[in-house]
């Protein structure tokens, strides 16, 4: 869906769903994942449908992920950092709270 025009020399190590990646610094978690070809970040709270980053500017809250054990992190706003452990935020569905 996206490709990188050029590569940085400085990389940080992150993991997403157990898989390790070395990604450029100076970017958000969302852009790092999109650059690695990952589009599905979470499932929706009511109907359990796949969702990913939509606005990339902190407005829609569709990019929510679990980062280092903390849920509801806005992937498009949080910068990537060394050793971040990132997981999809999966809902059990039909959960209106």
């Amino acid at each position, binding site marked *: 869906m*996206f490709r990188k025009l050029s590569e940085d020399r400085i990389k940080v190590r992150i993991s997403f769903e157990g898989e390790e990646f070395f990604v450029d610094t100076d970017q958000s978690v969302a852009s790092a994942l999109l650059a690695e070809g990952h589009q599905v970040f979470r499932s929706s709270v009511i109907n359990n449908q796949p969702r990913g980053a939509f*606005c990339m*500017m902190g*407005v829609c809250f569709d990019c*929510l992920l679990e980062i280092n054990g903390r849920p509801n*992190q806005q992937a498009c706003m949080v910068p990537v950092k060394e050793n971040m452990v990132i997981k999809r935020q999966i809902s059990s569905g039909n959960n209106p709270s």
Partner: protein
Amino acid sequence: MTLPAFDYVILGAGPAGMAAALTAREHGVKVLVLDEQSQPGGQIYRNIETLKTTRPQEFQKLGQEYQSASQLVENFRQCGVEHWFERSIWQISKDLSIYHVNPEGEHDSSVPSLVQAKHLLIAVGAMERPMPLPGWTLPGVMACTAADVLYKTSGLVPEGKVVLAGSGPLMLLIACRMLDAGVRISAILDTGNKTSTLESLPLLPKALRTPSYLFKGASMIWKLRKAGIKMVSGVQTVEALGTQKLEQVRFRKGSMTETLGADLLLLHHGVVPNVQITRLLGCEHQWYEQQRYWEPKVDEWGNTSVKGVSIAGDCGRVAGSKVAELSGHLAAFDMLYQMKVITQKDRDQKSKHLFEQRNSHLAVRPFLDKLFQPSKNWLVPQDDSTLVCRCEEVTVRQIRDAVKKGALSPDRVKSLIRCGMGPCQGRVCGLNVTEIIADESGLPPETLGYFKIRPPLRPITLGLLAQLH
């Protein structure tokens, strides 16, 4: 407890916020600027400092405007303003105490977590007008400016089969930028309406007072056509199809329906002011009929109905970066006058040429606002099963049913069916909910009110929330 206090706190370091900071600092006022991003620039000049040093080729490609903005950012850095980046506002109380967190939703010890403003300038800019259509929640469907953010911040460009749908100058600009970056665009589906084109013509002579805007628009269209991109005008419906992610885009024009393979669908329906903070503060708002959005009611300096609170830039009437910058200077001059740093005469003298420049940039707006007037087709999704509230997954049909049961305001609809109650707090669905209630009830949108915006403006930890009580 005494809080760290500043004479002037500015929310947002885009063109408006930076300009205001410069003028305030020139007069020795103590200024703090807070922004969610990691550096100054705002939406238009996002990541400009890093781009210039690490990706000079792309910086050049962004054009002359970007290069002169780089000077503005440098001046801002050197003017002696206190600036805290990666700070997101989640509450502002009546006495102008400002609560903020880092992007992880936490406090960290790097800066005080609560500050007090004598005067507050809101310069938080605009957001894209959401364009709900069937399938728009599928991964692979994004806002058009999201692609621009990815390009400016990480040098990521779309790959595969890329389709753009919508209308407005920003969509054309972003499409041209993609072309320059070597992206192949499969199709541009223009959803603009013909009536607006005709109705905008009488406004053209005034617009010609600033021909550069029109020239820029025409040359973008020419460039896209010349590149051989499939451009379809008068598109009436668009659907995103796929199961786990986007696979196809289906559109209809008159009696013709066509389906295109797609890896990425970028939607654009113009930009609207980000009014979350002015709403939180209880500023009065008014309905701007031409572009069908709410804007804070302000005087010529940007003062809102709440004492000590003014706005500048695209979080009021959307008018682009030049007007934002000029409005930032003007708002700061009036703040200096209110704080008795300068006299009224001083203020008026220093502002005269700024007002003149602003008026000349504004001359094109009535024409553009009419030409790119959002059409009803897209404000009120025709397919009743379309999700309007992405967070709580509420459809057009559910909203119509709530209206039939007597919910005649966004807040009533929210309490009945949770629409607007998710983490985005109605930022995404608010305007469409208003349009659907208006359509179903026959009442004018300006009589319907808006969601009541309450803190926290973003998810934060319970511990932090407890601070409020």
